[in-house]
């Protein structure tokens, strides 16, 4: 229960910050905004495995879908897949390790941007993949990485201080 509550609050804060304060940090016209939700999904999947990463991704995506006014379930699907894929690396989880989650976040953000390109842009005839990789995906991945480092520290701290003791055995079983 505590775990669910913690993730609900994390997702809510992420969506709120992404839509408001972080728009001040955006680069130019392109809306290169650090993606807090990818960070939360990566951290959750890395710490807790596939199933939980998947559920966190699903609900985070659903809130984002509702707030952004697109079709319901699109971002939910994308983030859910990210949660599942990142869950494969849960067995390598070590407390205070930053390098592996950082690489996971970069790859996830890139993959997320790519899925967005395929499903949201390619479907109405935008075929210049090169430009999207150069101006959207790579800057997005780099920016997310930079912000990921302090954010992951906080998320890892929350995991150990707030939610970990209740689920010690379970996390062993799952990995």
């Amino acid at each position, binding site marked *: 229960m505590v775990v669910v509550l913690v993730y609900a609050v994390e997702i809510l804060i992420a969506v*709120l910050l992404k839509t408001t304060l972080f728009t001040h940090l955006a680069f130019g016209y392109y809306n*290169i905004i650090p993606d807090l939700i990818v960070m939360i999904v990566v951290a959750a999947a890395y710490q807790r495995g596939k*199933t939980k990463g998947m559920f966190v991704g699903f609900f985070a995506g659903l809130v984002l879908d509702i707030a952004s006014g697109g079709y*319901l379930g699109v971002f939910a*699907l994308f983030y859910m897949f990210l949660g599942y894929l990142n869950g494969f690396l849960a067995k390598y989880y070590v407390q205070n390790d930053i390098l592996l989650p950082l690489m996971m976040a970069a790859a996830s953000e890139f993959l997320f941007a790519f899925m967005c390109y395929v499903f949201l842009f390619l479907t109405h005839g935008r075929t*210049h993949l090169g430009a999207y990789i150069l101006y959207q995906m790579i800057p997005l991945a780099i920016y997310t990485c930079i912000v990921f480092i302090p954010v992951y520290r906080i998320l890892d701290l929350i995991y150990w201080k707030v939610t970990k003791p209740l689920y010690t055995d379970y996390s062993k079983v799952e990995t």
Partner: protein
Amino acid sequence: MKERQKPKYDMEPRYVLLIMTMICIFLIFFSYKFANVFDVARTRMNSFLVPLQKGITTLGTGINNAVDNFEQVEALQKEIAELKAENDRITREKENIEQSLYDLERYKQLLSLADSYKNYTTVGANIIAKDSSGYYARFTLDKGYKDGIQVDMNVLAGAGLVGIITEVGPNYSIVRSIIDDNNYVSAIVTKTDDNCIVCGNLELLSMGYIEIRDLSINTEVRNNYKVYTSPLSDKYLPDILIGYISNIQNENDGLTKTGYLTPVVDFEHLNTVLIITDLKKNLTEE
């Protein structure tokens, strides 16, 4: 068969993934097909999010303004001097224009022309959140149907078109701007009266442009011609300035010309907008 006895959370992750994927596809299909059913849930959720977003945005702009104030004092003093000079010049021009307007009015009466410029009624609104995804150029305003806002109302900033309202809740509304990759506006070019389509293009945005297409190959459009919304459009009101043309070139099909358009609205620094409360369909019914 024995797997059924296991508790639910021990299910193989890939089966969970499969089930959840199907749920997602189901959701996408239904929100596309039966948008009305989902609007209730969506409005509930957004009504909860909007006050929070409003608070954070107010705080953010407050801090931003405080920092800006320090930087800008000197620049502002210079600007005031410039503006005073400009004001004098404009006052003189205004007198000339008033004279011409009087003449125009007389000619119009002579020609018994209908008044083509309607005075639209507008409502101001603040932007409280920009697109949460980063892939739509949409933003949330702090006015909703309680303030008389409806879907398809046009949104302006300064003299230029910003976009159109696509979703309305009790205390918020969502605007899809003309720079959105999915947005198409039918438009008309001044001087030549050519019809064309203005559409957002994420690729060109880094250069500050959006796309203009479907211009006739025979057109004599030049750079810096103004582009207005067309009377043909069924959602956008006519005679609203969109931007200026640049970089016109022939399309490969040999039938049309395409080009870039510089929007008059500065989308990067947009905080407040005007909503026109007249709807196009009502105007045409009259």
